[in-house]
């Protein structure tokens, strides 16, 4: 077994030193009636070649697509080569949580930089070291808002949040008997302001709005925040496509008190949904209710600048059942990818990428709308995703595209009654004009 440092002479020497005949003699603490009396019913060990062959065969069972027009919470952006090269350095990927800061300054300084960048793109003051994904960061943001808003027990959410985030939120809020989850309807693809106004009762702790939302529409956070502020509720922006921060103002600068969501778009591959990058940022006044790890700057004995895990009294290993969250790990290596990505992109690169995303999506929309079977579903501005109504058989349209090696937009029919025959399209900087023109040619063949 290539991963075990076993050699007969040394194995014997170890056992002799311990004073046992066989390794099994060390299992004395495990009552014999509780031990497994047989070998595991699993295949035997394999060489690298054999394992690789099996996994390559599995990977080959996934359909490769030459063009993708699917987003919906997972975005196909270009990943600069330097990112893979950097994160494959063992010092990054084989280290653990920086419990010993003297030999973890690399990780600690990286996270401090990551926190700074998340604050920058969101326009807020304090970020943590990252959370699991967009779904769970939405949960943590909502629970934090409830902690900050003592005596208010209702979490108000826009129906425009990613439906999976809504479900993850529901899963996690249900066990809290005192908490209520209430949904605000959409009107023309964005939060219905009348409905919001009527539901902003004194028991509402926070309102969660997509920015942009699941349907690609850009919510007017400024207008929403005027209402939430008047009602004493916190405004939480939920962003599932962080690339939009190159196009849209940071939510903290247009009224959001908390920004959370998914930042896989910064330097990560699709990888069938994970590992992705949950982020959260808040105003300074709220930092002591923040979930998860936070890195802070300090000095060492010689007065040299260094970084440490800080504000740990919020966390599970100190506070146990009184902690702000049960989260222990973060998405360290994924956050590192995002950090490297943003530093490579720079401010101009991020804006430029975002402009390309918007340009491709606008071109895709205009080409689709040339076909009378497609109608724009909403009028709100969008970033790189938008919805069209299709006057035809969506399933057939999808099948036709897939047969041509094209992954089409998401069929929204299962998500809501009024989204029947609606398709959520996405284009990014990786989408080429040629791919779009080919898609248009293929869909034109669908009756």
């Amino acid at each position, binding site marked *: 077994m290539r*991963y075990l*440092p076993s050699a007969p002479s040394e194995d014997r020497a170890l056992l002799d030193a311990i004073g046992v005949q066989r390794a099994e003699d060390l299992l004395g*603490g495990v009552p014999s009636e*509780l*031990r*497994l009396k047989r070998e*595991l019913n*699993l295949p035997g060990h*394999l060489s690298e070649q054999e394992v690789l062959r*099996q996994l390559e065969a599995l*990977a080959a*069972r*996934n*359909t*490769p697509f030459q063009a993708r027009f699917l987003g919906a*919470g*997972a975005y196909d952006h270009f990943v600069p080569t330097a990112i*893979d090269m950097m994160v*494959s350095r063992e*010092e990054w990927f084989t*280290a653990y949580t920086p419990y010993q800061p*003297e030999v973890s*300054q690399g990780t600690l300084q*990286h996270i401090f930089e990551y*926190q700074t960048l998340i604050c*920058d793109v969101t326009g807020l003051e304090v970020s943590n070291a990252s959370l699991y994904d967009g779904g*769970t960061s939405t949960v943590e943001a909502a629970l934090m808002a409830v902690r900050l808003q003592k005596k208010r027990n209702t979490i108000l959410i826009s129906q425009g949040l990613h439906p999976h985030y809504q479900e*993850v939120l529901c899963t*996690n809020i*249900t*066990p809290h008997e005192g908490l209520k989850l209430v949904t605000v309807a959409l009107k023309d693809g964005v939060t219905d302001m009348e409905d919001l106004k009527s539901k902003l009762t004194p028991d509402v702790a926070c309102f969660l709005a997509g920015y942009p939302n699941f349907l690609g529409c*850009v919510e007017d956070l400024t207008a929403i925040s005027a209402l939430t502020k008047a009602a004493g509720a916190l405004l939480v922006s939920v962003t599932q496509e962080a690339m939009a921060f190159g196009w849209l*103002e940071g939510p903290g600068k247009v009224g959001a008190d908390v920004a959370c969501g*998914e930042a896989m778009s910064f330097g990560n*591959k699709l990888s069938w*949904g*994970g*590992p992705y990058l949950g982020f959260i940022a808040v105003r300074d006044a709220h930092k002591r209710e923040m979930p998860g790890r*936070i890195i*802070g700057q*300090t000095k060492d004995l010689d007065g*040299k600048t*260094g970084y440490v895990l800080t504000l740990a009294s919020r*966390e*599970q290993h100190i506070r146990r059942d*009184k902690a702000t969250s*049960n*989260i*222990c*790990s973060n998405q*360290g*290596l994924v956050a*590192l990818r995002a950090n490297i990505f943003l*530093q490579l992109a720079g401010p101009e690169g991020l804006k430029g*990428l975002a402009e390309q995303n918007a*340009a491709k999506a606008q*071109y895709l929309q205009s080409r689709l709308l040339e076909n009378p079977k497609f109608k724009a579903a909403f009028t709100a501005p969008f970033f790189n995703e938008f919805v069209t109504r299709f006057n035809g058989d969506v399933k057939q349209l999808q099948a036709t595209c897939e047969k041509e090696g094209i992954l089409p937009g998401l069929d929204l029919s299962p998500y809501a009654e009024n989204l029947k025959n609606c398709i959520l399209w996405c284009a990014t*900087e990786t989408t080429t004009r*040629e791919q*779009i023109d080919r898609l248009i040619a293929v869909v034109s063949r669908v009756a």
Partner: protein
Amino acid sequence: MSLRTREPLSFERSVPGKVGMDLPKLDVPAARDTRPAHLKRSGFDAIPSLCEVDVVRHFTRLSKWNYGVDDGMYPLGSCTMKHNPRLNEKTAALPGFAESHPMTADAHVQGNLALFYTMQEWLKEITGLQAVTLHPSAGAAGELTGVMLIRQYHLAHGRKRRVILIPDSGHGTNPATSAMAGYEVVELPSREDGSISFEDVTDPATGKVRKGLLTLVKELGSEIAGAMITNPNTVGVFEYRIQEISEILHGIDALLYMDGANMNALMGVARPGDFGVDVMHLNLHKTFSTPHGGGGPGSGPVACSAALERFLPRPVVVKEGEKYRFDWNRPDSIGKVHAFYGNYAMVVRAMTFCLSHGGDGLKAATMRAIVNANYIRRQLEGTYHLQYTTPTLHEIVFDDHIQNGNDITTLDIAKRLLDYGFHPPTIYFPLVIHGALMIEPTESESKEELDAFVDTMKKIAQEAKDNPEILHQAPTTTPVRRLDETAAARKPVLRWVKA
């Protein structure tokens, strides 16, 4: 080691105009500006302007300030810092996996679904349980999923219960998780041998009586939803009465949750499903070698009994003939716990680890991990104090009792280890051992590495007697020395701000 003394924050090195990413030529008309004026991105205050050379050097230099498993022994107890095989990285990056979109129809991701299904089958066999979900993102997320399964189980049986029992030696995530799942936590005391006490325990110092398992069950009975127990526990001791505990809990219709953080001690040796566990999580980043990544991403699958299967997070992968599909129609499910299906690329790595080892290799890994920990125990017993003398499996917890005489604490010992080029063990955990030094060598360490570690620990013990000041000053060879954590928390500086 060529450690630069200081690598500035990248923000301080920014030179406007530098470019680290060239954008492709735009092949469609430029974007029309459809944004309301107030929502237009104004600018950025921190993102630096650097070229690729700057960025690559920055992250290379920073990396050199880290210590990883490839640098040497990393005996962080409870964290299972084993070797991260490079093949796992290669398989996770196969384009077929890495480029698959999570919203793709089942028919086009048969490879992913097959891999998911196979991994679940392996974990079922390893744990002896009947069903598995791979969705939770990390150990703590697995715990939360598991406790929510327990909650759903009771609700389905028309029971409302408010209490979860957790031993005082448990990971902090256990009580934090129970609170997040709406439960009240009641602590179970440990006995002198490190196991859970069935009887009441009187603290010899304070005379305070702490209720044991039997009293708590008698008094709280129908309010107890379950117990969360780490096995082997955080002192490396197998909870030898685990089956009895399970029977007592089942006697009051409560369930047994096992924190599987220490599963590296049990593969092929004993199966939780066989000794009465109803539900447990595994840490793919511990037992199954997926890299720790400086703090994540992890992956925390949950295994459970047949009685809990219907409550598992949706969607659940099912096999029909040679085809696989996601079953979303799960009316009793607790719901989704991750936006998609968890940290899939970590599952690919763990599957690679499993295929490489096979059933025989997994058991061999466990046995070697146990031998390594016992070798260290034997070599350091006497030099360092052992609170519990019970047989231990994959890890061993010493403390600083002997060294306290020379005014030396666990922290000093840990910091001195850094000067000798070792990552220290987990310190000050579990809380039940004052000044704990929790050593988990894992199966990856050779005799040569173990001996070097043992020699160093002995040398430090000698230094503690001869020259304690060296230990108080340690470390002196690291990129920074001891850092002022109090100042960091008192006046938090949590991001860079332009001067």
